[in-house]
């Protein structure tokens, strides 16, 4: 009897498609553009393998960031966590630990960093932006201190092969790692109680609390996972650099956040998808790759990338306008 706005089934469907695929449309558009301009060098299996390889670090770290952002938070410290992670791995290898132990050590240390932010945010109710901004500086310093302000190069192990490009077109295992974890996180978000709670906390924290969702625990876990995924990113970055580098990944957090946001997540929380995030990360790698293929100067590339970040949310704007018009 109360008359709700009539939401026609068709426009709902259209909106759904747009929500899920707006970033994908963007990706296809960008790819199409570069393919049209440089078909011979851009459209090769080899080049796609490189694009994917160069997406792996951002992509895997962005999985964790997606959780953090869906839960209504933000983590500016992931770039520093990645740097610290590579250093920890390198030092552990130098100490003679096995590659597996070293990698797990790196992931563990990163998770601890995430936990630290999470604790400050949940226990002391501090703003995530500020806490993680502070952590960004502190962890960068810690990485430099640990590494004695120098890159650390341990002997070669199989870890280094994680980012090795195979024969023409073969994907490095790091890419498979990213894809595998992406599937896991997507399942986590959809089919577990924790996943639904992440959305609930980001959508309306007060409601979540009143419904008995353990809000603090969910947030803490989300930051721990954010740290752990940054740690996995560190493993890949370590493999990529073949060493631990305390100065690596400066400013990477902003690229990672951009990937998540381009992928359709909202910084206000409650919204975001894993597939969107991956597409967002890919868009940025494709732009960087394509600009090099076109022989554009660095500065043109920077302008184009900035423009594409804005254009990607513009798509979102049209989507929302469509949504608003429908109720």
């Amino acid at each position, binding site marked *: 009897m109360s008359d709700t706005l009539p939401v026609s089934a068709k426009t709902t469907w259209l909106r759904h498609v747009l929500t899920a695929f707006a970033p994908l449309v963007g990706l296809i558009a960008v790819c199409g553009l570069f393919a049209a301009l440089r078909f011979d060098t851009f459209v090769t299996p080899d080049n796609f393998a490189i694009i994917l390889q160069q997406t792996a670090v951002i992509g895997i770290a962005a999985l964790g960031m997606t959780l953090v952002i869906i839960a209504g938070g933000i983590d500016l410290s992931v770039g520093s966590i990645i740097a610290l992670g590579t250093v920890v791995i390198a030092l552990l290898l130098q100490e003679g630990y096995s590659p597996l132990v070293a990698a797990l050590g790196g992931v563990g240390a990163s998770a601890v960093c995430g936990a630290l932010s999470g604790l400050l945010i949940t226990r002391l109710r501090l703003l995530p932006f500020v806490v993680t901004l502070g952590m960004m500086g502190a962890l960068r310093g810690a990485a430099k201190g640990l590494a004695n302000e120098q890159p650390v190069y341990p002997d070669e192990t199989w870890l280094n092969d994680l980012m090795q490009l195979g024969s023409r077109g073969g994907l490095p295992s790091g890419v498979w790692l990213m894809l595998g974890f992406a599937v896991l996180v997507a399942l986590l978000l959809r089919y577990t109680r924790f*996943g639904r709670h992440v959305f609930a906390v980001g*959508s309306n924290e007060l409601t*979540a609390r009143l*419904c008995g969702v353990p809000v603090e625990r969910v947030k803490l876990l989300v930051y721990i996972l954010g740290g752990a995924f940054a740690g996995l990113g560190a493993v890949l970055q370590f493999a990529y650099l073949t060493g631990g580098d305390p100065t690596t990944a400066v400013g990477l957090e902003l690229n990672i956040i951009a990937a998540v946001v381009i992928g359709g997540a909202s910084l206000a929380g409650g919204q975001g998808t894993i597939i969107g995030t991956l597409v967002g990360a890919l868009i940025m790698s494709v732009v960087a790759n394509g600009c090099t293929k076109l022989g554009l100067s660095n500065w043109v590339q920077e302008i184009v990338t900035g423009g594409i970040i804005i254009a990607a949310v513009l798509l979102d704007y049209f989507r929302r306008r469509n949504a608003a018009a429908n109720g």
Partner: protein
Amino acid sequence: MSPILQLSGIRKRFGATVALDGVSLEVLPGEVHAVVGENGAGKSTLMKILSGAIAADAGTMQLAGAAFAPAGPLQARRAGVVMVNQELAIAPHLSVAENIVLGAEPGRGGLVRHAESRRLAGAALAELGRPDIPLHVPAGSLSIAEQQLVEIARALALGCRVLVLDEPTSSLTHADVEKLFGLVRRLRAQGRSVIYISHFLEEVAALSDRYTVLRDGQSVATGRTAETTMDRVAQLMVGRQVNELYTRSVRPTGEVALEVTGLAGPVKPVSASLQLRRGEVLGLAGLVGAGRSELLRTIFALDAVRAGTVRVGVHAGPASPLWRWRQGLGLLSEDRKREGLALNLSLEHNLTLPRLDPFIRPAALATETRGWIEKLGVRCAGPAQAIGNLSGGNQQKIALGRLLRNGADVLLLDEPTRGVDIGAKQNIYRLIDELAGSGKAVLMVSSYLPELLGTCDRIAVMCRGVLGPARPVAECTEHSIMLAATGTAA
């Protein structure tokens, strides 16, 4: 019969504020127990303690004879004590089904069984008489009334021994209120208990078996509803006699202050025409969602005008809220928290925002604000206090005062007494009467018919975005208005 629930000596302070000062409450199995009291009496605080949302400073609770001290809402829910909150508690991005099972998702080992969730949610909505609400859409896309129902369904889905409803009807449609009452009676018949909080005393009279009155954080009276009158209850609440709730003095009408012709907004209103004169109070009745708020917003240029004209005094044509203020119009929002007030800014800031000189003398503004605080009888620490710290009634006074301070001659009032206690209501009605008497024009939206019948000179009914003709109040009855509102007559 031994009580299912027994609260005694409950105390709670928020800093310097004593919200509960030794409250006791007994609820019997299979009864509907009304809890009433002024704004800020401590009703919601008491229920939040009961449902585990906050902890008491002192006091004991017993559930079915055993000590009851829930560490959080989930524990309380598991023990069978479930609360529907006064403020909407909806996660807008989650689906309706997910909202209903939130915090208690069915499943094992951390996995959620979505099919089972939908089944539970569907059953709960069916029990509420609204199986038509879709389960898969984001809850944020529902109307406010439907969101409220989702919240009630959440309480049902888990099963409960004690259901707490904190002002559940303030944004429900008439039909949904009836369905809710039916549900409450069914629960009672099943031997479950319902604690019912409302500022509508006739609901209390119609529904409850017993009542408890809170005043200033203390339980001042309790008894059987059948053995008292609502006038007596009101007196217990406010601490004085509340007779003559409504005031309508004889007021001469002047020239036309507002004329709306064929107005249509983006979605609603569909078509609305009205004429409002100085010295007159015109009421707008209708069902929730009929588009009355949208009509006021369109008049005030907050929403876009699709067709039609608005003439304010001698001014006509398109406008912005800024121009409306300059033309002597003022709007009181129906949603004080979300739209009406900037809660973390000061009283002064909120009061003076619509009309400021390019350069400001803060001292003069503070003095002026102090004057208004006195004139309106606002209880506060001073003009610099953040308005969010005030109780609801006092916030509402400042929101109303804003229209007066900024020279509004035509007052658009959207649900001016929503969530306000009976004493405060009386004051607001008096104020409206005084204003009209001094030559101002008032256009008032309310979902509460007695108050429209009690305060307005004429009433117009809106149905599905179309505004009917305004009739003198003497020609209106609750029945005739309901018929017009549901579109069954006319």
